[in-house]
């Protein structure tokens, strides 16, 4: 009797399956549309941002300066504003991408690029450079150190993962331990330093886009952009990890390997993003959530969407930080926190389910 039922269903299956197919296509189509919209918004914002700053430059002047390299407007736009804007976009993409990856790998919606202690170790490296002038790459002591120590932290974590267990819980705990250790070490260095050095260390932690030039952008983009395609290719595996380690394994995902290499690459991106600009917080945590609210949890769309949202947020924050009290510059880390915290509360209140 049951078999009869199946036979009848099979005739209508073809037609009905087309219905679902269309539905699903529409569903996916909407996600792609959202990303396209973001791709339009971002450059538009960038164009607007180019015109903002204490030195007032109108649209006509800006276009004129494109062709005349001797004007003041040209210098300001090409050597000061544009590098800032490009770096903001790069860092926004990097931090959000890494944040999304960390949330997937650690199966924790509260994970951020800094969960594994990278901020503290990088800060320690920067402090070493600022106070003792000790470290690698003499011309870029501070950035070089920050990068080196950030990578160091991920190696420590991976060591723990290999030696003990690579479950998300172990990894997060190791990250917390590293954070406390290096925070204390940084405080120790601050204690030894002069007032001005302490001042500089504090401001490094606030994050700043003021000091970037095209050379630094080239270096940073190398570190941020290179790992992106590899991680993007693993979108499916990130989706599967959300089902649980066991289900993911049963569906063919090499869970341990994916987690370890994923963390390494995401840490590389984060280190590249923060070594020149300092710690810019909240973006890596908040962008994946905003993207998820609109686009859902499929990482093929989530990763690009979250990156673009992050870029837009940081661009906004940077523009605010240098126009609201011009000519003063509010450190960008402070502005992102101001945007991030209320938004976080909003998410907490508005979410429809107990899970994310």
């Amino acid at each position, binding site marked *: 009797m049951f078999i009869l039922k199946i036979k009848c269903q099979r005739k209508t299956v073809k037609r009905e399956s087309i219905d679902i197919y269309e539905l699903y296509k529409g569903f996916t189509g909407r996600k792609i549309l959202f990303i396209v919209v973001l791709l339009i918004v971002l450059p538009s914002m960038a164009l607007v941002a180019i015109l903002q700053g204490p030195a007032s430059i109108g649209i006509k002047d800006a276009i004129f300066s494109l062709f005349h390299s001797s004007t003041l407007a040209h210098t300001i736009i090409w050597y000061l504003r544009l590098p800032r804007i490009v770096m903001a976009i790069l860092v926004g993409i990097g931090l959000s991408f890494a944040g999304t990856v960390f949330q997937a790998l650690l199966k924790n919606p509260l994970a951020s690029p800094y969960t594994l202690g990278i901020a503290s170790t990088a800060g320690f490296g920067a402090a070493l450079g600022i106070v003792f002038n000790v470290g690698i790459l003499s011309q870029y002591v501070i950035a070089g150190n920050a990068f080196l120590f950030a990578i160091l932290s991920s190696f420590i974590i991976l060591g723990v993962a290999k030696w003990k267990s690579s479950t998300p819980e172990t990894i997060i705990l190791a990250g917390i331990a590293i954070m406390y250790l290096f925070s204390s070490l940084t405080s120790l260095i601050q204690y030894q330093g002069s007032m001005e050095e302490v001042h500089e260390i504090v401001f490094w932690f606030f994050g700043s886009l003021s000091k970037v030039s*095209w050379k630094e952008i080239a270096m940073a983009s190398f570190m941020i952009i290179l790992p992106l395609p590899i991680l993007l290719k693993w979108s499916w595996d990130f989706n599967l990890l959300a089902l649980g380690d066991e289900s993911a394994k049963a569906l063919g995902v090499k869970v341990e390997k994916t987690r370890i290499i994923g963390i390494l690459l995401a840490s590389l991106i984060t280190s590249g993003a923060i070594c020149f600009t300092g710690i810019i917080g909240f973006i890596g945590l908040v962008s994946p959530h905003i993207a998820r609210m609109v686009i859902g949890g499929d990482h093929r769309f989530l990763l690009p969407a979250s990156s673009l949202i992050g870029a837009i947020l940081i661009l906004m924050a940077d523009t605010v930080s240098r126009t609201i009290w011009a*000519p003063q*510059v509010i450190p960008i880390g402070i502005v992102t926190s101001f945007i991030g915290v209320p938004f976080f509360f909003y998410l907490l209140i508005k979410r429809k389910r107990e899970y994310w």
Partner: protein
Amino acid sequence: MKVFLIFILSPLYLFFGYLLASEAIVVTDSLGNHISVKLPVRRVVALTSDALETIRAIGAEDLVVGINKNIPKEPLFWPKLKGKPVVGNWMEPNYEALVQIKPDIIICYSRWGKGIEKKISPLGIKLVRLDFYKVNSLKRDVNTLSLLLGKEKEGGNFISWYQKYLNLIKERLKNIKYKPKVYIESYTPFHTDSMGSGGHEMCLLAGGNNIASSIPIPFPRVDPEWVLDKNPDIIIKAVSINGYELNNSTYLKKIREEIINRPGWENIKAIKESRIYIIASDIWAGPRAIVGIMYMAKWFHPHYFKDLNPEDIHKEYLKKFHNLKYRGIYVYP
């Protein structure tokens, strides 16, 4: 018999009377507060280097019983004091050490270190807040200090020496029409000095126009683009370093290079004309600011100060008030 007793006991009366009636004076600190201090003050601790320098300048070095933690890093400048016990500094005073040393007064900045009074008054130590880094209040601060330490004459000498040169500069700049635009960068990159800071004051006294003067807070962090837009004629960078201990100008030179190489800054007038000067913190915003002002006046208005050599004035100061030979590097170039 009664007379005999009175005769024997009177010195005791006198003695007790002396104890009870020991002088206490009321002085004004840098905040304008009136503080009552028991005289004589025999034991002093200066938590700031500016205060310590002024103490020595008025000849009261032997009253110092404790030093702040930066002093041992400058052995050449403080040959006699470098061995004294260290009591932390104005950010983090070491209260235990203070208890052991038992000074009569400690001197600290007016703007920072808010909780110190509460901690030390139960210990019987008086806190007097004297800045010494603002030229306009220097006279009053030095007077207060001289009164406290019983060095009125020496204090007066110091003030008149100081005033002599200040007046000289003021006189020469009396009729100038043109004031160059100056960008002042303090110890931390991209932080400038504005109203309320020592650097701003010095700039004005030297006849310069501080491009940051309209910013409401004393040490704001600024957008590099704004500096480009204002296009200053001169850039002054203050560096936190012990100029007295320096043997060469390598470090100052490095700082100068770093500023010149900032992206886009090669277009600033000051950099194009190579009018960018580095100043060591010894002669910046402290009791020796007059030397710094003299250098700046010479850079801003070379025509009016051709005959003056700030180095000579510096030598004079060191010999007269500190009994030290001149050495070290303080400016570049």
